């Protein structure tokens, strides 16, 4: 169970009595903060009087309460994850007015599609539908939680931006759905359809065969059922076998013996034997029902294998990060929004607050504050003045737009290189189920089939007898137990990891994760949340109510990390209102801070030397001072916010035998400070690393089995170079598409769980192989001596599959309890 971070203060909310009613928080349960956080049910410290584990959960609860959507908790299914560190800065909704069809009085009915991130269950669907239908002009909505897609039908006066704002207040993320095909079926959908049809065919085949097994051996009914069975098995082969035959042919062309090869071989041999039996009228080798059951089981195994990974990939917003990058360019015609790909050297760009600088440039006119944490990992923003060089990837965290002259084309930009489509790793498409064992299995089965054929042929002098034995060997030795049990095992592990908040995107992740021996962390955004918090939060409560209202007004519009940290501390006071936007004006002084004139007094928040120019102060470097008319009111110091129970989780990684290292672009002093706090030795830290240097770390011999965790664009090359990679970053698809997994929890505990799960899965797989070998030894021997009749084969196949699946699920259920301990 996740524990709330001591660095993120829980908040208290008075629960209205009218909310304590039947149906809230599950059937016949009243809202009760003693059972954990009111939003996510995370356990709170013993004896705590708090109602929430973090500000994020409190914020979402407040949004649901304000919107009279508390029935959300009645509909919610399963456990929820803590919201954690919710972004308080404003998101840009320019893309709505720029890229989507306009909803006007003349446009009629407009159909819109969004990608949506964060959907979990029916409660999410219900909440979004409620928000939608409250707006005038709302006609219809389809929330596809499986694919993360929102389809709207609206007409004037529906306000799309307002809808997006209200949905994101609940913690979801919306984006333009740029690459959604219309009505297309994914490969997983096609597998599901094939498996369903072949299962129906198998059921019919077994029903028809039952009559024959029970003694029907002649007559028109027998002829009819016999012909129907052959037709059913032929249909099953035509529908189901291409999945395995195509893969087997590909593996042969690649000179790699894949497990689909024996599957395809078994299907082909069995069908040829059945065809020969039907055409010749000889009943031997007529394994019609076994063939259809075999194909159905293998198809379900393949579907299980791909289902969860496909779901995890579609859970994210999959828009192309590069295509969505838009910049403002100044020209004689005014300000134009252009795709960043059209930026030429010499263009004058207008970088608005919150915008990314897409190319290297030089500041023109009034400077501003830029954050480089995406590039260097340094959390503190830097001040840039006229003539200063600003790097591509910097983000404007000031309150004013800054003019930047482009020094290069976008094609040469580092941002383009880091946002480019990631190369597909060679092992991403690998099924990974006993690939190394496949050659021996194939050869073994062929040898056994040949032995059985010749034994029966020489014993009875009849080729049909030999063919029957050879077919029986191929059928009973089918890799159903492996083809179904191993994918089921992976499916169970991946589903369990989803419950824990970790989503795997790569088919081969679990196989590689079992071999990891080193875990490398980026610092900013990975070990820390990337945000700052007040280290002296009591300073805020010592201010008067009026001064706190003024302070809130000064920081509420700012994107500066220090301002966001102060606003977060003020958010713990829900009754505190700002002064009102229309009655005051906050002015930003670039490089120094913000100031506000209120009731004849000048309030300043920023550098101590600027806020109190005539005072002699001995404040820490980097401190933020609040003053009134030059006199100090409060001094705020910041620290980086660590993730939930970071030291504890890093300690568990080390006690499990993993070498832990920290790799960062930030300064050495900050990196070593974090390292000391979480228990990583200084010699295992690497600071001031460029993206290229980070990537080259993984070329060292002792880093060949390393797991890299990172979140910024500066980690992209390292994530691609590492043996296994993961990210906590969801709002940056450019990073997530390069990682094998992503996690949504405030802490890193699911990462440790995934490594333990991978090792346990390896143990379960090996034991499954032992069972598989013993079963084949017995079954093949019985087939060779002629003890396996068609009906025996039809029973043995599903029985061995069920036994394998039962073993796998029981083993993993027992082991999974230790993954988060």
């Amino acid at each position, binding site marked *: 169970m996740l524990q709330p971070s001591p660095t993120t203060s829980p908040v208290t909310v008075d629960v209205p009595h009218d909310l304590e009613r039947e149906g809230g928080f599950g059937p016949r349960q009243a809202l009760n903060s003693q059972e954990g956080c009111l939003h996510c049910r995370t356990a709170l410290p013993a004896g705590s009087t708090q109602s929430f584990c973090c500000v994020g959960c409190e914020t979402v609860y407040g949004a649901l309460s*304000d*919107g*009279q959507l508390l029935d959300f908790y009645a509909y919610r299914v399963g456990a929820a994850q803590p919201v954690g560190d919710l972004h308080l800065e404003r998101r840009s909704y320019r893309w709505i007015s720029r890229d989507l069809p306009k909803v006007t009085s003349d446009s009629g009915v407009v159909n819109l599609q969004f990608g949506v991130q964060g*959907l979990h*269950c*029916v409660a*999410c*669907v*219900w909440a979004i*539908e*409620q928000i939608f*239908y*409250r707006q005038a002009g709302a006609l219809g909505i*389809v*929330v*596809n*939680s*499986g*694919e993360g897609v929102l389809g709207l039908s609206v007409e004037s006066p529906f306000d799309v931006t307002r809808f997006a704002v*209200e949905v994101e207040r609940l913690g979801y993320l919306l984006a333009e759905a740029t690459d959604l095909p219309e*009505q297309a*079926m994914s490969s997983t*959908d096609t597998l*599901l*359809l094939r498996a*369903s*049809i072949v299962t*129906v065919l198998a059921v*019919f085949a077994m029903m028809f065969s039952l009559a024959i097994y029970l003694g029907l051996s002649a007559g*028109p*009914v027998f002829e*009819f059922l016999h012909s*129907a069975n052959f037709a059913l098995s032929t249909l099953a082969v035509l529908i189901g076998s291409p999945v395995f035959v195509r893969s087997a042919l590909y593996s042969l062309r690649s000179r790699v013996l894949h497990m689909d090869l024996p599957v395809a071989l078994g299907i082909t041999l069995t069908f040829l034997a059945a065809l020969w039996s039907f055409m010749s009228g000889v009943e031997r080798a007529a394994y019609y029902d076994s063939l259809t059951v075999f194909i159905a089981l293998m198809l379900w195994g393949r579907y299980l294998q791909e289902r969860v990974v496909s779901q995890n990939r579609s859970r994210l917003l999959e828009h192309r990060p590069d295509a969505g990058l838009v910049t403002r360019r100044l020209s004689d015609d005014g300000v134009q929004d252009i795709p960043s790909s059209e930026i030429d050297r010499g263009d004058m760009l207008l970088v608005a607050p919150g915008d990314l600088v897409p190319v290297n440039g030089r500041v023109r006119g009034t400077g501003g504050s830029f954050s480089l944490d995406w590039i260097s990992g340094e959390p503190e923003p830097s001040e840039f003045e006229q003539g200063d060089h600003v790097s591509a990837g910097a983000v404007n965290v000031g309150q004013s737009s800054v003019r930047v002259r482009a020094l290069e084309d976008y094609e040469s930009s580092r941002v383009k290189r880091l946002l480019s489509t990631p190369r597909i790793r060679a092992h991403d498409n690998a099924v990974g189920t006993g690939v190394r064992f496949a050659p021996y299995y194939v050869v073994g089965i062929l040898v056994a089939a040949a032995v059985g054929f010749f034994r029966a042929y020489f014993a009875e002098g009849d080729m049909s007898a030999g063919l029957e034995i050879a077919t029986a060997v191929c059928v009973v030795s089918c890799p159903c137990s492996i083809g179904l049990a191993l994918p089921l095992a992976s499916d169970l592990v991946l589903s369990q990891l989803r419950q824990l908040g970790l989503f795997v995107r790569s088919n081969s992740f679990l196989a590689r994760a079992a071999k990891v021996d080193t875990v490398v962390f980026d610092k900013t955004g990975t070990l820390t949340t990337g945000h700052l918090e007040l280290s002296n939060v009591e300073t805020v409560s010592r201010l008067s109510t009026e001064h706190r209202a003024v302070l809130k007004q000064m920081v509420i519009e700012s994107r500066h990390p220090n301002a966001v940290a102060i606003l977060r501390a003020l958010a713990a006071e829900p009754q505190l209102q700002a002064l009102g936007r229309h009655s005051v004006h906050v002015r930003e002084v670039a490089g120094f801070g913000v100031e506000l004139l209120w009731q004849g007094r000048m309030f300043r928040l920023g550098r101590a030397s600027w806020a109190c120019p005539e005072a002699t102060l001995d404040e820490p470097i980097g401190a933020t001072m609040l003053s009134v008319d030059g006199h100090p009111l409060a001094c705020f110091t910041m620290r980086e916010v660590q993730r939930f129970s970071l030291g504890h989780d890093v300690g568990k990684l080390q006690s499990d035998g993993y070498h832990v290292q920290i790799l960062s672009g930030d300064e050495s002093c900050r990196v070593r400070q974090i390292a000391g706090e979480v228990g990583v030795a200084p010699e295992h830290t690497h600071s001031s690393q460029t993206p290229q240097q980070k990537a080259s770390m993984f070329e060292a011999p002792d880093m060949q089995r390393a797991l890299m965790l990172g979140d910024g664009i500066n980690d992209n090359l390292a994530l691609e170079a590492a043996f296994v990679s993961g990210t906590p970053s969801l709002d940056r698809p450019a990073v997530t598409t390069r990682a094998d997994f992503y996690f949504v929890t405030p802490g890193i505990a699911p990462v440790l769980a995934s490594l333990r799960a991978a090792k346990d899965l390896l143990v379960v797989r090996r034991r499954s192989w032992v069972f598989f070998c013993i079963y084949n030894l017995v079954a093949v021997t019985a087939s060779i001596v002629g003890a396996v009749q068609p009906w025996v084969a039809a029973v043995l196949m599903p029985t061995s599959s069920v036994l394998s699946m039962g073993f796998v699920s029981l083993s993993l259920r027992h082991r999974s309890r230790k993954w988060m301990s």
Partner: protein
Amino acid sequence: MDVLVLTAFVSLTLVVAGVVFLAWSIRQGSHKHSDRLVLLPLQDERPCQLSSANEDEI
């Protein structure tokens, strides 16, 4: 025998119809948003409108 053939024919026809509906449902992606379908029985309920006080805050 005629009855058997007729029974098998009707059964297969029903199965084919079921498969066609299944294929249509998969193509529509209904199986991926079963969460929304679960809410269909509640669709007659009008969304609760906000009180004016709450609307101002938003």
